[in-house]
């Protein structure tokens, strides 16, 4: 009787052990395939595979956040003007746990000098059961990438379309839908919308802990967006940054310096910036970063010549848009 019990226990453990081995094997195989064919990876996963494709320890600036992150910074402009190697680890609707795993994934192969986080993600917290569900889901995907890339098999079939071309996580979007709302959306007030939610605080603490332990500088920034920001949020974020002793740059308060024109620089009525808006922000941000952080200029280094080639492709592509409309006029939240 005891023997049969023992036997059953061994069988159960072997069954689940083998299952783990199979899932791990598939994870390795699929992540490898996804890494080699990032053009076939679905949009939200692209930043992860793209990061994995970068040569080790070459990214100095990692930017994380939701669509506000990947529509406000143009890494190729940062490269051209300052020789900063930046990568956008942004995903549409990124949740804080996704930001955390984006950072963890990046740190597997990179050692950035600075991590910038776009703050919109701090206001995206779910209800308790949903948050727990998201945590489980993200953790599962991180440790078993087979769940993330599970439908890569589809790309083996003929007729699979490649996605949009991105430049270190940035997709130039050229369409214009002017913002016609309140120009003074950042009118001063004493009220504040605090950063709330246990999930947000827990993962922010983890992100800050990792950065501290790895000796990585960390800063928060808010991209210009009348749809997503106001002074109440600014107050909440400034208070949070002060409490955590981290720098916070609110670009919504720098519109004059940036030269943002809400008639021309937004892709979707003030929610996100288009190419011209992102380049204006990047110009300002480049100078800010040079003044405040020691980010090396790699432009003359031989090992970074692929960056020059990618910059050429980027500028050729955005040059083309004027004549051929070759660039996607897409929804940034895709």
């Amino acid at each position, binding site marked *: 009787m005891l023997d049969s019990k023992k036997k059953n226990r061994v069988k159960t453990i072997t*069954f689940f052990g083998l299952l783990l081995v199979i899932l791990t094997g598939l994870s390795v195989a699929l992540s490898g395939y996804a890494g080699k064919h990032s053009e076939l990876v679905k949009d939200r996963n692209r930043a992860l595979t793209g990061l994995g494709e970068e040569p080790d320890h070459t990214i100095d600036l990692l930017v994380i956040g939701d669509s506000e992150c990947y529509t406000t910074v143009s890494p190729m402009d940062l490269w051209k003007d300052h020789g900063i190697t930046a990568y956008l680890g942004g995903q549409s609707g990124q949740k804080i746990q996704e930001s955390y795993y984006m950072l963890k994934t990046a740190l597997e192969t990179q050692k950035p000098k600075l991590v910038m986080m776009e703050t919109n993600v701090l206001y995206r917290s779910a209800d308790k059961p949903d948050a727990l569900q998201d945590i489980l889901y993200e953790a599962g995907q991180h440790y078993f990438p087979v769940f993330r890339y599970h439908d890569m098999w589809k790309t083996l079939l003929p007729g699979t379309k490649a996605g949009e071309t991105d430049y270190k996580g940035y997709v130039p979007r050229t369409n214009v839908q002017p913002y016609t709302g309140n120009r003074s959306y950042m009118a001063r007030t004493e009220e504040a919308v605090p950063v709330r939610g246990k999930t947000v605080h827990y993962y922010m603490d983890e992100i800050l802990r990792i950065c501290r332990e790895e000796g990585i500088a960390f800063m928060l920034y808010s991209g210009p967006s009348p749809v997503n920001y106001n002074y109440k949020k600014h107050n909440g974020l400034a208070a949070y940054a002060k409490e955590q002793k981290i720098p916070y740059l609110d670009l919504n308060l720098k519109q004059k310096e940036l030269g943002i024109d809400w008639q021309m620089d937004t892709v979707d009525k003030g929610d996100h910036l288009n190419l011209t808006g992102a380049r204006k922000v990047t110009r300002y941000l480049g100078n800010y970063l040079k003044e405040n952080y020691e980010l090396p200029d790699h432009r003359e280094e031989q090992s970074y010549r692929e960056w020059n080639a990618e910059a050429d492709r980027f500028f050729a592509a955005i040059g083309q848009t004027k004549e051929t409309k070759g660039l996607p006029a897409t929804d940034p939240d895709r």
Partner: protein
Amino acid sequence: MAYHTGMYLFLFLPAVLLLYQAAPARHRWKVLLLAGYVFFYLVSGKLLLYLLGTTLFTHYIGLRLEALQSAGRGKKEQKRVLAFGICVLLAVLGYLKYYNFFAENLNKAVVHFGGGPLLAARHLLLPIGISFYTLQAIGYMADIYWKKIPAGQPLGKVALFLGFFPQIMEGPISMYGQTADQLWQGRDIRREDLSRGWLRIVWGLFKKMVVADRLYVLVQNVFSQHSRYSGVIVAVAAVAYTVQLYMEFSGCMDIVTGSARMFGVTLPENFRQPFVSRSAAEFWRRWHITLGVWLKTYVFYPVSASGLVKRWNRFARKHCGKYAARLGVSALALFPVWLCNGLWHGPRWSYIFYGMYYFVILLLEMAFEPVGEKIRTLLGLKADAWQIRAVQIFRTWLVVFTGELFFRADGLRTGIEMFRSIFRGFSLVPLWDGSLCMLGLDLADYLVVFAGCLAVGAAGFFKERQTDISVRLENTKLPVRWACYYALILAVVLFGAYGIGYQKVDLIYAGF
């Protein structure tokens, strides 16, 4: 926290299993009851009070009925208590679920006749599973009245019967005699229960995640922009929705039944290969079985045995003959059944139409049965000939697909428009000219759906011949068995419609 989510499958269910097994047998029902209330609270929050209230009230009515019975009081008084109990439960359900529908239609009628709106719309929150646990509660009270349940049922047992967590969201609607004792026993968790339970859960996940959630995209595209489509595309959408609904609901039932099985509880089955039905009546004996059984037991039989129906039967037999009498009796008894069926699904005219649609179809089936028999005899075919079976099954499919088109459409008017649009410029060409790949699914998706349906169909084929594949698998050699288990798990992992590029699909029946 739906049944197919990681939170339920990897956190909640294992935690309850552990606590259940760790608790002494006499306290295990408390673990299940607490788990039920936690589950309910996680989904519906404070609306848990409705379930608690229903439980206390149902138990109280049961006690009152027992007291009257033991005191030898007349049937009339018992009937009054039972009617009061049923009315209160239906009033709560009716108010929460149908008030706004009633108010909207009443206002429309009053405005039509020149008056002003009488009732304002209210923001009413519906507790999860109210349509399911209310029916179980009514069944409990009726069973006490009919003395099907022994007297002196403890409150905890009734509470657990109404609040067993796997059943809360989507049923199956069980009778007290089917589950209460099993839940109350608190027997040890056994290896074979665990092993059969998890396999059933994975099978349910396969149906839901691989087939149903994939088809959701196509269905959503066509039904939400129905004016853009016509002809065979609308017909395809109706078929796709029927398959989606079956895979989702029966898949969820597999997860639910598998979960209960892990605790050694056998829940009543809700599906039995409905797509091999030879008539709409048979279809409803195989589809959402527990709702059908409930309506038959607590609506059809009482109405059939009522004085009105008996009088009509006597009158009709005398004046109109057996055939008309049978039809008349059926119509009288079936009408409330199908009205309840339609209304139960929700406060929409399209659901009421759906109920009435089956009412008419069932009566037509009965009315034309002799004609069908004559045609069959003329053709010299046996009742069980494959040609007859094929025609009958195909006819049932047409009835079912049409019914589901109206069921899914956003309103009765939309349903009628969509149905009519099928015949507008009908052509089969869109089936192969690439139009199907413009509906949100690509060729790979269609292949997966096809293979998934084939797998489910094959399992159903064997089950129809009294061969349960899962039981057969248990008797095969270990490497073959494990290979099949791994194949099923990996099919869910690799072909499941989840993650980036797919939408989270809520359980359809949880909304009823």
